[in-house]
């Protein structure tokens, strides 16, 4: 079974600085998707960025980018120019495909604090 591990329960960063959140996963599949979700205090799950495993180029969405290392099964999220609104719980997720349902498997989450 696929597993996703986020080894940093909490992280903090100064406003305007850069922070990297770590994620590793375990799978025997060759084709899959990886995601980072943001969960602010409102509880809403917000998709931040996605990465297709067959693409070598790292995904980027404005201030958010990933470092995808397929051989190492590592998928870290870098947030540049951190803003107060970035404070949230961040979840790494893997999309598995079983009978077409394509379920998401989540990591434990990392709580990010932004210091003004």
């Amino acid at each position, binding site marked *: 079974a696929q597993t996703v591990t986020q080894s940093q*329960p909490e992280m903090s960063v100064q406003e305007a600085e850069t922070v990297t959140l770590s994620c590793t996963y375990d799978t025997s599949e060759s084709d899959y998707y990886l995601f980072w979700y943001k969960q602010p205090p409102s*509880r809403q799950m917000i*998709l931040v960025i*996605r990465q297709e495993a067959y693409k070598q180029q790292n995904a980027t969405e404005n201030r958010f980018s990933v470092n995808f290392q397929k051989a190492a099964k590592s998928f870290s999220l870098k947030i540049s120019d951190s803003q107060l609104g970035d404070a949230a719980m961040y979840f790494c997720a893997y999309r598995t495909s079983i*009978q*077409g349902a394509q*379920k*998401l498997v*989540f990591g*434990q989450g990392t709580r990010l604090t932004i210091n003004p």
Partner: protein
Amino acid sequence: NAGVTQTPKFRVLKTGQSMTLLCAQDMNHEYMYWYRQDPGMGLRLIHYSVGEGTTAKGEVPDGYNVSRLKKQNFLLGLESAAPSQTSVYFCASRTAGATERSRTEAFFGQGTRLTVV
């Protein structure tokens, strides 16, 4: 633009009581999911549905039942609530749409905080 709506937002139950959580989506999505979120454990899949009238077990199905009588609704039932079911419950939906990109994104409701005392 309602998206995925969960009812209720909060609920307190006594041990042994039953209740049903309702998830409604207005995007005509084929796939629907129920997750529970517990501290330090992320979100775990309870049950899911690949279409109207079909359901399947996820990672942590014990103590829950589901039904999908209508495509837009996915109900999660607790027949006899236990304190271990205290959690935040999330519903999500996804399309089986035409493009791979559209099929990858899951849309989440705002969650239901359930406390069983």
